[in-house]
């Protein structure tokens, strides 16, 4: 294969690859969970939870939110990529990965929808 052929092949396949990645990104539905169902088996897995903010605190780099639904409570860590207007009893949906901190599970937010 000469350089020109390789150029065409890599260009065509990178275009196909980008389209495929977009397809995956916008058609991947993260499963929504009740908070009570989340346990250590979910560590490092990405989950989606919906609930209301029971309380929250703010540090220079992140928000710590206590999120509750009808089944339980979980601490959500939201890194401050932007300032959020949070308040108690606000309905939010958080997608993120489950981690263990001080023997309790927490969700590290990748996306928060207010």
């Amino acid at each position, binding site marked *: 294969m000469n*350089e020109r052929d*390789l*150029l065409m092949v*890599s*260009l065509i*396949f*990178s*275009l196909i*690859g*980008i389209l*495929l*990645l*977009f397809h*995956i*990104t916008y058609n*991947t539905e*993260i499963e929504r969970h009740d908070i009570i169902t989340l346990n250590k088996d979910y560590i*490092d897995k*990405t989950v989606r939870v919906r609930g209301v903010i029971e309380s929250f605190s703010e*540090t*220079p*780099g*992140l928000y710590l939110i206590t999120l509750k639904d009808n089944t339980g409570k979980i601490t959500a860590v939201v*890194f*401050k*990529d*932007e300032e959020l207007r949070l308040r108690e009893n606000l309905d939010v949906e958080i*997608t993120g*990965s489950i*981690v*263990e*901190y*001080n*023997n309790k599970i927490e969700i590290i937010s*990748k*996306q928060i929808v207010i």
Partner: protein
Amino acid sequence: MLFEILIAISAGVLAGIFTGLFPGVHINLVAILVLSSSAFLLRYFSPLSLALFIVAMSITHTFLDSIPSIFLGAPDAGMELSVLPGHKLLLEGRGYEAVFLTVVGSFFSVITCLSLTPLLIFLMKYGYPLVEPYIAYILIFFSVLLIYRETKSRFWASIAYLLSGVFGIAVLTMPNLEQPLFPMLSGLFGISILTVSLMKKTKIPTQRITYPKLSIKEVLSYLGLGFFASLLVGTMPGLGSSQAAIISSSIKKKNKPENFLIMIGSINTIVMIVSFVALYSIDKARNGSVVIISQILEEFSLGHMVLFLAVSLIVAGMAAFMALKFSRIFSKFMDKANYNILCICVILFIIILVILITGLLGLLVLIVSSLLGITFSLIGIGKNHLMGCLLLPVILFFLL
């Protein structure tokens, strides 16, 4: 207490050497490990020692991360643009000199930052609120400037920027991909260069221990550029060394690889130090390790900042020594190794790491990013246009 602090700093330097030399092992990963083990660690160490461990690791990392980028073509975030000039010097038998130049940049950036700390605090307190609303337009301006300065083909430069930008949006918005930057940057700036080297049957000449002839005027001008760009983006959310590298590289029309390496070396270190100063002056944590420091310490005073800067200076001396030592080892290793086999091994190593860290989805990202990188390597335009993968998503984030 002093003994404890010394242990923390030494451990931090060792951790920084590890994260710096191994592509894909990010300082945030170690910092998160420290935080999640803090219930245990705080029985033996004070919060300040844990924070100083992270400071020492972060600064050391910025001195050593150029080594895998230059010798192996496996860059860390923020070092993507060092691959090509670093590789160029490696092909002239001057790999050690390339690392030396990034170390010069890193070391003098620490001294510059320390001597300009009062100015930094002032600029962040009063300049940051003025610049923040316009950061998207500033990034658009520098992106256009970058494309305009492409000498070979502005058309292909625009295509590279837009295509990599669209690719970056797809990858960075993927909901279930851990550490998306690793496969994306490794493919665009690592595997693609190694593959083209393999295709062209590149031979690495005997590596010599040489030192550059530096003009103080040029060094100062590139350090100044690095300082300006790092300060501009170092205080903004979602921005970092990569964006600073693009801004600074778009300003100068022709960058000699030697000067460019000094600038790239300085940027990572300045961004890290700026983030310590930002935590004190505007109470904002702008990167992962500083977020963790802010959680461990809870309160960050002027005394903390002064201590952090002093530790940064001490660590800079140690890290510079270690970086040059390891660079000598890598130079000797390159002489003995068959470069083609080494390229294949590094490609396989990156593939395995990507699968382990990011799974099969990450592997798909790596394949597409490698193909994209190969495409524009063969077209022959500057690889810096592929930084659209980070710039376009950030611009849209600020605009929308």
